[in-house]
């Protein structure tokens, strides 16, 4: 996996896929069993501190120092970054409507998330790492975050984020990596992956069918039933449609509409592979 300056990369995967663990390895919270991580040419495992000077990190966990005020917490978070801009952080708190003088313990989950985002965006680090950045945010704040991350990328920052929010990941990221149990299932640019998703067809049949009665080919995976079936297929689409024409199909739809469906088909394949 490689991320260049100005790029935004999204990690997608179900719970336990290893998204957060990967990000935690990057910032030295977890020591990886194997492999290498390099940030700006620095070995992030052997020289974690030096690598972290180049990383602005927002964990998914919003447990923060609850006795501090929002502003104190921001000040504390930015104090260790040489490149941090506290005024920008303060402006971001205002933008996100976080009361700077209120103690963290009195803030909602979403407000704490906004503080974490403000400190990342004001860190001045060339690599921004965000674990579930959209979680608990209202739609307006999501729009701000998307705009701000795009601005950061346009200014040369690399942005790495993990998310369950597939819609905003698709909207935001240049490249997407699907993870499953610590391994990369697929990666690529969002449009490429969407094109690939044409391999997934959803069929609604006029009468119920058992799986054994459906046509079968190498590389085909059926799921669902008995009236609504999903087919993940390989090979030319014309051949596939010719074979399917023998079925009493009420409607047929391809899965190239959203990342959600790529996600569903990838994990369906993984689960069905012995």
């Amino acid at each position, binding site marked *: 996996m490689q991320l260049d300056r100005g790029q935004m990369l999204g990690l997608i995967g179900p719970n336990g896929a290893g998204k957060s663990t990967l990000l935690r390895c990057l910032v030295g919270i977890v020591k990886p069993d194997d492999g290498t991580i390099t940030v700006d040419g620095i070995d992030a495992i052997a020289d974690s501190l030096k690598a972290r*000077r180049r990383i602005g990190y927002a964990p998914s*966990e919003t*447990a923060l120092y609850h006795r*501090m005020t929002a502003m104190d917490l921001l000040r504390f978070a930015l104090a260790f970054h040489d490149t941090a801009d506290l005024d920008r952080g303060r402006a971001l708190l205002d933008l996100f409507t976080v009361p700077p003088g209120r103690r963290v313990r009195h803030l909602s989950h979403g407000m704490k998330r906004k503080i974490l985002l403000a400190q990342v965006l004001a860190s001045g680090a060339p690599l921004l790492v965000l674990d579930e950045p959209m979680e608990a945010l209202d739609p307006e704040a999501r729009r701000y975050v998307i705009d701000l991350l795009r601005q950061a990328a346009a200014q040369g920052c690399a942005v790495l984020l993990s998310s369950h929010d597939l819609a905003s990941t698709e909207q935001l990221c240049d490249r997407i990596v699907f993870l499953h149990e610590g391994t990369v299932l697929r990666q690529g640019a969002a449009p490429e992956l969407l094109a690939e998703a044409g391999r997934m067809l959803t069929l609604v049949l006029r009468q119920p069918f058992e799986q054994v009665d459906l046509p079968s080919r190498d590389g085909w995976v059926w799921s669902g039933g008995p009236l609504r079936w999903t087919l993940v297929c390989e090979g030319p689409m014309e051949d596939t449609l010719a074979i399917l024409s023998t079925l009493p199909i009420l409607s047929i739809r391809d899965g190239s509409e959203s990342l959600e469906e790529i996600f569903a088909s990838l994990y369906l394949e993984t689960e069905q592979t012995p």
Partner: protein
Amino acid sequence: MMLLRQYFRDIWWIALGYLLILEAAMIAAIMFWPQFRDNVPAIAKVVPFQALQDLISQMHQAGFWPYFAVQHWFKGCSLFGVAAIAFMGSGIIAREADQRTAEFLLSRPISRRRVLLSRFFVLSMATIVPVYLTSITAIWISVNVEEFMGWGDILLAATYMSCFLLMLCGLCTLLSTMSTNQFRAGTILIGFVLANFAIYLVQSIDTFSLFKTIDIWAFMQIHAGEPPWSLGAIFVAVTAVELILADWIFRRRTF
């Protein structure tokens, strides 16, 4: 500096409470001295345990200094000191794990060693500064009961007691780096100290107790101009070992 300030903000009220309690206990002990002095033989008869009877008889023979040493350093500083260390220090690292703030803290560009040492420094200062302050104010307060203590003895005794408390700060730091729960780290420290006090009260095994190193004899040596330097050095060395171990564990710990 930010790390020091952040930790101090968390514990200053405990440190202040510890200082006030220590000062109040010290003033009360000094003011009680005239009554105590006049009733030593009667008190010695009702005190349980040979170890405590020895302390009383020593006070009877040598006067105010051993009385003050027992009341302030042996009893006050060790009792309230251990409680303060447990309250303030058990959370050094364990609270970060307990309250799930470790990920936020440790993802900042600061080394774990710096986190550990700066917090240990704050804990140490919060523990030993009250020992010095109360010991020094005792010089003026004891004049009220017509007793006079020299600066040299007081400062040496406070330094010796501080070395002992530093060792407990180190132990608390070590326990905290090993624990996922602040309460557990504090309880283990207090349990360890109580066990040592229990051992101290049993005459045949009292030499194995940590309290043997800060009882009346150590302070009488200081008063006699022969401070137990070697013991003080051992306290400092043990503190260093505890910190090295804590650092080793903390650097390898996953949160």
